């Protein structure tokens, strides 16, 4: 079978498990690695042999020092990890997982995996996103986009939903629904609210990047440790081999409790300090588990409420609740959400695979393979400018220019004023984060604007643009003096931001416009449907007419002609006739 080597793969790089998916005939398929779509995000070094996935997870129980798990929780930090004798960045470990997924996918699909969309929790910070991007690069991938996990899950859900309803033509009656995606994974929690209809818009996104299954397991481990302490008077809190074993036991018990009301934890030969060992035998009920993790679940519910508030919606206006992430199999999660949203609102989707499948769909949107679904996502964090504070408490504050949950791409401007007579310069420092105090936010770029001598209180307009790839573009202008400065901040690579004078930038812009390959543009669902129809048509004359109309339409789109409506109607009418003919 001739498969396109240029396909964009979707990768869910999870805390506990990862998954890779690809579009086949427009539908996403999770690729089965080692007989399973879900691959444990664990690496282990066995002598000189690097293991990833299931084998690594099994080995990690016996050899925790030679294994790394839950590396996602360290993304965006500078923490070093040791594996055998060498030390690694979190990006290196993630790259090993990515490489493994891609190699396996290549083996199964029979073509190279070069381009990928990788998902991250919606609430991941700029640094965590950059770190994920870097991991992709180190794995030799072109990372086409970093996509938010709940958004990806919603895209997948939207696609199954559309196929279940049959191919009702879109663009007809508006039947918009609000969906809430509750995504509790191994290490992170996200909640997003989306409006879904002919287009999919994210309205609000929030979460906690350090809350997940690992935390639930830790509670169970603590409980077992207490039992051992009471029974054998042994303190295993600092005993790494014992903890690795108990963690694995705790995870199995927690998973089993999603099905059963109670489980027995029987574990012998648990390694203890000074060559000793011990055993544990105890019963754990679902009720006890729920009790000891009640605060964790409570935190997720608080985020759900915050997201609804930010989307200006009440619970009765949420039509669907989508559960994503293996942790949502815990019955108490569904119970708590049912109490808020009612049972009818919870459709069944595969909580493990939907994120990777959604990422593959996003890959199709980028490549132009899929133009039926249109996604409008939001900025996860506020972008602000460091300004003098009017408060007496602090010297500076971060004045928001693009607030979080703003739909992207977007351009926003705000006017500020100089404080000194004949002020010579203003420093422009771009901060990301929700705090009023710039020091609690992250500096992602800076530049300065030289001023023409003027009275104090001279207005300075600062404009931020944020594109689909998370690149921030800043333009500052001294009003009435037309002194301008611009910088481009690639939030994926902040060290490379450049500050330029406007003249140079205009030259750059010209150069970019003439760059080859940028021409493609004009792609939407109409053009893609027309192209596919032309490919299937046999009547030469009809084919020619349709091709000509399509060319006129594409030109009108590019030039933003006023008669684009008319041409679109012509084209759609032509396509309808030709479609009927093709079917006959």
């Amino acid at each position, binding site marked *: 079978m001739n498969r396109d080597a240029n396909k964009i793969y979707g990768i869910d790089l999870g805390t506990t498990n990862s998954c890779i998916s690809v579009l086949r005939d427009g539908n996403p398929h999770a690729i089965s690695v080692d007989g399973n779509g879900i691959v444990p995000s664990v690496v282990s070094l066995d002598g000189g042999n690097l293991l990833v996935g299931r084998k690594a997870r099994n080995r990690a129980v016996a050899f925790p020092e030679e294994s790394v798990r839950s590396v996602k929780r360290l993304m965006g930090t500078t923490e070093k990890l040791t594996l055998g004798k060498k030390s690694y960045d979190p990006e290196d470990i993630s790259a090993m997982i990515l490489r493994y997924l891609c190699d396996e996918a290549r083996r199964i699909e029979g073509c190279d995996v070069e381009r990928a969309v990788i998902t991250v929790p919606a609430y991941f910070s700029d640094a965590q996103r950059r770190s994920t991007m870097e991991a992709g690069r180190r794995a030799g991938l072109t990372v086409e986009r970093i996509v938010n996990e709940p958004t990806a899950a919603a895209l997948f859900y939207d696609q199954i939903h559309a196929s279940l309803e049959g191919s009702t033509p879109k663009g007809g009656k508006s039947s918009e629904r609000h969906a809430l995606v509750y995504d509790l994974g191994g290490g992170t929690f996200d909640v997003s609210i989306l409006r879904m209809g002919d287009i999919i818009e994210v309205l609000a996104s929030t979460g906690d990047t350090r809350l997940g299954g690992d935390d639930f397991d830790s509670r169970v481990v603590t409980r077992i440790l207490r039992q051992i302490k009471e029974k054998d008077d042994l303190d295993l809190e600092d005993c790494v081999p014992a903890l690795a074993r108990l963690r694995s036991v705790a995870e199995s018990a927690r998973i089993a409790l999603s099905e059963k009301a109670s489980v027995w934890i029987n574990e012998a030969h648990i390694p203890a300090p000074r060559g000793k060992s011990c055993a544990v035998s105890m019963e754990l009920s679902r009720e006890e588990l729920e009790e000891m993790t009640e605060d964790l679940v409570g935190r997720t519910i608080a985020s759900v409420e915050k997201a609804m508030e930010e989307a200006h919606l009440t619970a009765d206006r949420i039509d669907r609740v989508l559960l994503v992430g293996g942790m949502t199999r815990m019955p108490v999660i569904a119970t708590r959400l049912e109490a808020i949203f009612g049972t009818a609102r919870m459709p069944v989707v595969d909580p493990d695979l939907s994120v990777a499948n959604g990422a593959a769909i996003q890959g199709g949107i980028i490549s132009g393979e899929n133009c039926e679904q249109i996604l409008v996502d939001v900025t996860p964090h506020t972008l602000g400018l460091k300004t003098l504070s009017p408060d007496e408490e602090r010297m500076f504050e971060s*004045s928001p220019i693009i607030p979080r949950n703003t739909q992207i*791409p977007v351009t926003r401007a705000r006017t*500020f004023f100089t404080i000194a007579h004949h002020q010579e310069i203003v420093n422009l420092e771009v901060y990301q984060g929700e705090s009023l105090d710039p020091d609690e936010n992250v500096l992602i770029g800076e530049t300065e604007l030289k001023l023409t001598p003027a009275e104090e209180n001279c207005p300075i307009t600062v404009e931020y643009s944020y594109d689909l790839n998370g690149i921030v573009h800043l333009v500052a202008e001294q009003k009435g003096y037309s002194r301008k400065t611009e910088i481009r901040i690639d939030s994926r690579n902040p060290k490379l931001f450049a500050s330029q004078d406007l003249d140079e930038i205009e030259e750059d812009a010209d150069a970019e416009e003439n760059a080859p390959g940028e021409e493609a543009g004009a792609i939407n669902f109409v053009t893609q449907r027309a192209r596919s129809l032309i490919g299937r048509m046999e009547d030469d004359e009809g084919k020619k007419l349709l091709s000509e109309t399509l060319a006129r339409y594409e030109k009108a789109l590019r030039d933003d002609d006023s008669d684009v409506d008319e041409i679109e109607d012509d084209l759609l009418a032509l396509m309808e006739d030709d479609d009927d003919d093709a079917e006959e």
Partner: protein
Amino acid sequence: MIEWAWKTLKVDRDADPETVRQAYVRLVRRYPPEHFPEKFAAIRRAYQQLTLDDDFIEEIFHRVTEETTPLDLAGFLWGDRDELRPDKDAALTDLIPLLTGADARNALDEALGRAAAQKIEWKTGDEGV
């Protein structure tokens, strides 16, 4: 500003919120953000203006100073991007067709009410850079 928004979304002056929404969705499908980022941003902006979306109101607040009167605000809405229109009476007349649909009216009433109260919330004048 509002004239531009009507034109961009290709809707009539008296379009109700549902019609505005449909026009917006139709245009976003034609100009998806993935392949038409600039055109999309313009459509989005026009939609926010016509629905007097919170973000847009917020943006207006950020642009208005202590001295701004409701009429100045109207002028700002109706004039060009950055200009306050000198002809205030004409600006007020122009406001009338905007007041269609309960949501839009409430939002604008609130905005104008706050403009009249004028004093505290809108000042951006004392923020130095």
